[in-house]
C-alpha cells in the first residue's frame, strides 16, 4: 500500500517537473526569438546610418544651400545611433525617417539631383532599408507579443516571476497613421 502511494507521489512530482521544465524552456525560446528579432532591427538601422553620409554628400553637390535640411538629417542620424532603450530609439528613428523624407521631398525642386544615378540608387537603397526596418519592427513586435503573452498568462507567468522574465516593450510608432503596412513603391 505504502509503495503504491509512493509511486503515485513520484509520478506526480515527475509530471510536475516535466511541465515546469517545458514552460521554462518555452519562455527561454520565446525570449531568444525576441532578442534575435531585436538585433535584426539593429542591423537594419545600422545599414541606414551607413547610407546617410553618402546621401548627404550627394545632395550637397546639387543643393548646397539647403544646409538646414542636411544638418537636420545628420543630427537626427547621430541622435538615433546614440539612443538607447526601445522607446527612445523608436522616437529618434521616427525623427530620422521624417528628416529623410524631407530630403527626398527637396529633391523634387532639383531636377539634376533627381536625375543623378547615384542619388536614385541611394533612394532605392534607403527606401528598401526602410521597408526592412518596418518589417523587422513588425517581426520584433510579433515575437514580443508572443513572449509577453507567455510572461503574463497563467501558468507560465509563475515561472516567469520566479526566474525574472520581464515583459518587453513594443517598438511603437508615434503617429497612428504610420502604423499601416510598409510602403510599397511602384
Amino acid at each position, binding site marked *: 500500500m505504502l509503495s503504491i502511494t509512493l509511486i503515485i507521489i513520484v509520478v506526480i512530482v515527475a509530471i510536475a517537473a516535466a511541465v515546469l521544465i517545458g514552460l521554462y524552456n518555452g519562455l527561454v525560446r520565446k525570449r531568444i526569438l525576441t532578442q534575435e528579432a531585436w538585433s535584426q532591427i539593429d542591423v537594419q538601422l545600422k545599414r541606414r546610418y551607413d547610407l546617410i553620409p553618402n546621401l548627404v554628400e550627394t545632395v550637397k553637390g546639387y543643393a548646397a544651400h539647403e544646409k538646414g535640411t542636411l544638418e537636420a538629417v545628420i543630427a537626427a542620424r547621430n541622435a538615433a545611433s546614440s539612443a538607447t532603450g526601445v522607446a527612445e530609439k523608436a522616437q529618434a528613428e521616427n525623427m530620422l525617417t521624417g528628416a529623410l523624407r524631407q530630403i527626398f521631398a527637396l529633391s523634387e525642386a532639383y531636377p539634376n539631383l533627381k536625375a543623378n544615378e547615384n542619388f536614385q540608387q541611394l533612394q532605392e537603397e534607403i527606401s*528598401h532599408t526602410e521597408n*526592412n526596418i518596418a*518589417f523587422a519592427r513588425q*517581426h520584433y513586435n*510579433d515575437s514580443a*507579443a*508572443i513572449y509577453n503573452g507567455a510572461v503574463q498568462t497563467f501558468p507560465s507567468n509563475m515561472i516567469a516571476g520566479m526566474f525574472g522574465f520581464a515583459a518587453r516593450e513594443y517598438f511603437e510608432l508615434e503617429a497612428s497613421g504610420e502604423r499601416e503596412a510598409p510602403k*510599397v513603391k511602384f
Partner: protein
Amino acid sequence: MAQPLETFRTLIDRNKRNSVILIAVFMLFFIAVGYLIGWAWGGTDAFGVVVAVGAGTLAFILTLASYYGGSSALLSMSSARQIAKGDDPQLFNVVEELSVAAGLPMPRVYLIDDSAMNAFATGRDPAHAAVAITTGLREKLTREELQGVLAHELSHVRNYDIRYAMLMAVMVGVLVMLCDVFLRSLWYGGRGRRRSDSRDSGGGGAQIILLILALVLAIVAPILAKIIEMALSRQREYMADAGSVELTRNARGLESALAKLSDDPEVLEVANRATAPLYIVHPIKHFEDRASSIFDSHPPIADRIRRLQSLE
C-alpha cells in the same frame, strides 16, 4: 497578430513529422519489395534477406540524396538559374524584406526562363531554401504583387512545407521511375530468360510471384504519383496565402497577382507531375479547368481570392 505566429509552429512540427514518416515508408517499401524479389528469385529466406538489405541500403542512399540534393535536383529539373542581386535588385530587395519580416535567413533566388507565370520554393530547411520565379511572372507583376507572391513562397519556407514537398516530389518520383524500370526489365528480361533458360531454379512458382508483384507495382505506381498531389494538400496553399497576408499586412498584392495568374493561359513546360504541386498555381492548366477534383493539390484560384478578400 500573435495567433498565426503560434499556429505556424504546429505547422512546422507537422511537416517535420510527416517528413520522417515519409522517409520511413520509403525505406520500408524498398525493404519489403527487396525481400519479395530476393525470395522469389532465390527461393530461400536468406536470399530475400540479402536482397532486402541491399534494397534498404539503396533506399538509405536515395534518402540522403533526396534530403541533401533534392532541391538542386528540382531546380535543375525546372531549368532554374540562380541570380545575384545585380541581376535584379528589386526582386532581391523584395525577397530580403520578406525574409526580414519572417525572421528567416535570405533564401537563394532563381529565375526560370519561361513566359508562363509561376513560382515555387524548395529546400530542406529555411537555411537552405530557394525561391524560383518564372521570367513571365516577374515581368508582369508590380512590386506590391511581387511582394504578395514571394511572401506566399516564404510562408512555405517558414512552415517547412518545402522540406516535405521536396522529399515527396523526389522520393515518389524515384519510386515511380524504379517501378517503371522494374516492370520493363521484367517484361523484356522475362522473355529473354525463357529462351536461354539459364538459371530458372525457382521454377514456375517464382515466375508467378514476380508476375503478381509486377501487377501490384503497375497498379501502385500511378497511385503513388497521385498521392504526391493529394499529400501536398490544398490546406497548405490556403495557409501560405494567409501567411503571405500576415507577413505583408496586405492582401491586395497577392489578390491581384492571383488574378493575373488565373488569366494566364500558358502551360509551364518545365513542370511535370512530380513538381506540379510545388508551384503557387497548378502549372498544367488543364487540371485546373476541369472542375477541381478532390485529388487536386491546388484549390481553385477564385476561391483563394475570395478568402483573401475576406481577410481585408
